[in-house]
């Protein structure tokens, strides 16, 4: 794939070492945009943001701005926000409802499915020779997956479900309501956007499985955030049932999940929203309904994870999606969507909305400390002297991770380690390296031997 050597030799997951240049070098960043971002399905939004025909919002596909629309026939489109005449963005609003987009420069008009419908002076100026079918907005390939919207401009990227592999179950489960109903969540109106002085990969590797960084969140653990009436920031902290802590990775695609696998099936509900009885009651019922719907997989608590390269989600009542939008080697935009269960009583939606807004984003009591740390890590990545020293990803380096473990139904493509480990980060960088250099991944090579 890559022939000029950019990306080669930067990642050595066999010894758990990563060159700091991957966070700070602008030429590596530029290569990533083509070799990684252009070659992946990227998340752009959720169908609940465009309920009615004509609804649209602006989003990002890597570095490109796109308009996500529901056209007059109800279909979802992802359109490059670049006028085909001379390059102006044709849409200038964060969201709205429109049958068409008229370019502010020379007035070419595009329907909300991207087709070019109007060209001033079409007859007089172009002699009727301008083929409107050729000059519509550039349309991405689009997949709607249980409410989430994904897109790519690349024709060669494999079908979405192949790209996901065995990660599919986890993404689908995340998009369920707490009672296990598919496509069960809706966006709380508004996307939280902020900018952090950090490389995009610091955020992704954190979400892939940095269970080592709990000390970052000491302050919020101390103060308490969940509504379980117990200390802590997670609702599941209130559940005393024992579990295996899993770092589940899917090396083929580079995806990863953090999960609890409870030791016993069909455990009793433990009050997790005790501060608001009505809400607690909803989650109690949901717990048992989900057990019936998910059968043996009900033992899993999906805590969060990553769809390679830049989609991260938090689950287990912290229902939110974050994309890390790369702007430059040391500059990333964070976009955040927060969700509540679609069919829950209003009291549940309100409680979750409040909990989420206090948890997540630049005003969130948890994530403020993450953003601060990622920004600080960037300083280290840019340090001239420290550049001689690779970053260390050696936690539980060795022969620990097992395929399709602890239960075969976790998927043949799953490589799983237990406990606090940097396994998921190593897999993430292995996949990154494979896309950057075309060299096969270490872990997959070893597995094949």
């Amino acid at each position, binding site marked *: 794939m890559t022939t000029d050597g950019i990306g080669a030799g930067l990642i050595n997951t066999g010894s758990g070492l990563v060159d700091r240049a991957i966070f700070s070098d602008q030429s590596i960043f530029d290569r990533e945009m083509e070799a990684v971002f252009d070659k992946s399905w990227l998340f752009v939004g959720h169908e609940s943001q465009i309920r009615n025909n004509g609804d649209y919002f602006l989003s990002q596909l890597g570095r490109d701005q796109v308009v996500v629309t529901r056209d007059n026939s109800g279909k979802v489109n992802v359109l490059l926000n670049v006028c085909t005449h001379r390059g102006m963005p044709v849409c200038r609003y*964060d969201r709205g409802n429109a049958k068409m987009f008229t370019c502010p420069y020379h007035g070419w008009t595009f329907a909300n499915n991207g087709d070019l419908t109007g060209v001033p002076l079409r007859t007089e100026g172009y002699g009727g020779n301008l083929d409107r079918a050729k000059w519509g907005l550039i349309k991405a390939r689009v997949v709607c997956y249980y409410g989430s919207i994904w897109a790519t401009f690349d024709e060669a990227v494999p079908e979405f479900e192949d790209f996901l592999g065995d990660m599919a179950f986890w993404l689908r489960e995340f998009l369920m309501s707490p009672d296990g109903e598919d496509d069960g969540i809706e966006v709380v109106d*508004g996307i939280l956007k902020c900018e952090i002085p950090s490389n995009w990969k610091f955020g992704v590797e954190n979400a892939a499985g940095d269970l080592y960084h709990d000390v970052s969140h000491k*302050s*919020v653990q*101390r103060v308490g955030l969940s509504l379980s009436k117990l200390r802590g920031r997670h609702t599941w902290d209130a559940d005393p049932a024992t579990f295996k802590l899993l770092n589940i990775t899917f090396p083929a695609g580079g995806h990863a999940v953090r999960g609890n696998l409870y030791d016993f099936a069909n455990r009793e509900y433990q009050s997790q929203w005790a501060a608001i009885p009505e809400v607690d009651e909803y989650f109690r019922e949901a717990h048992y309904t989900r057990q019936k719907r998910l059968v043996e997989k009900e033992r899993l608590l999906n805590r969060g994870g990553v769809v390679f390269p830049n989609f991260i989600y938090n689950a287990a009542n912290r229902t939110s999606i974050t994309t890390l939008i790369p702007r430059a080697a040391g500059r990333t*935009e964070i976009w955040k969507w927060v969700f509540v269960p679609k069919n829950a009583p209003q009291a549940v939606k309100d409680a979750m909305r409040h909990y989420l807004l206090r948890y997540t984003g630049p005003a969130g009591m948890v994530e*403020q400390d993450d953003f601060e740390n990622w920004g600080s890590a960037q300083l280290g990545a840019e340090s001239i002297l420290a550049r001689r020293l690779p970053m260390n990803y050696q936690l539980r380096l060795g022969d620990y991770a097992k395929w399709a473990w602890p239960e075969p139904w976790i998927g043949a493509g799953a490589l799983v380690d237990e406990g606090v480990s940097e396994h998921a980060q190593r897999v993430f960088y292995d996949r990154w390296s494979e896309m950057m250099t075309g060299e096969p991944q270490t872990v997959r090579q070893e597995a094949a031997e």
Partner: protein
Amino acid sequence: MSAQVTETVGRPAASYSSGATLKQRVEDFLALEGELLDERKFDAWLDLLDEDVHYWMPLVRNFEFSRPQDEYSEQGVGAAWFDEGKATLRQRVMQIQGGDHWAEEPLSRTTHITTNIRIVEATDTEITVKSRFLLYVNRREEEVRIFVGKRIDVLRPTENNFLLKKRSIFLDQTKMLFKNLSNFF
């Protein structure tokens, strides 16, 4: 600075002078609030908030001229930067006060400037005040954040002062240009 000038905490000077107008007393209250925050007297600041205070900062969007309702996320429904009551504001203060909240450890240097103060409506129980704010934040060595926007406050008169009953903060930014909102407005 003389001791007299610095020791105004909790006792707005204007309220002692019989000639102080309502507007002077309101201005004094808002200045005191900002001063307490800048001097990191967060507990004293909390004391100026009504038990039922609502502290809200919506998201801001670029909107079509014909759809002005799209500019701010809807209160009680949409996402927001802040949607707080006193209990959670107290939690945020407690978080800062432990020495382990890295986004504010070491503490930021802040200066709150509140200006263009105008009383929009005053009854015996509620005074609605519009103002403009500038919050300057400096962190560690090189980090600078400048927040500018509009505020609508509802004050509740007490025996010799006010309590803040509601604060709506309209920041002039769609995308947050900084990594954290770890300061109070």
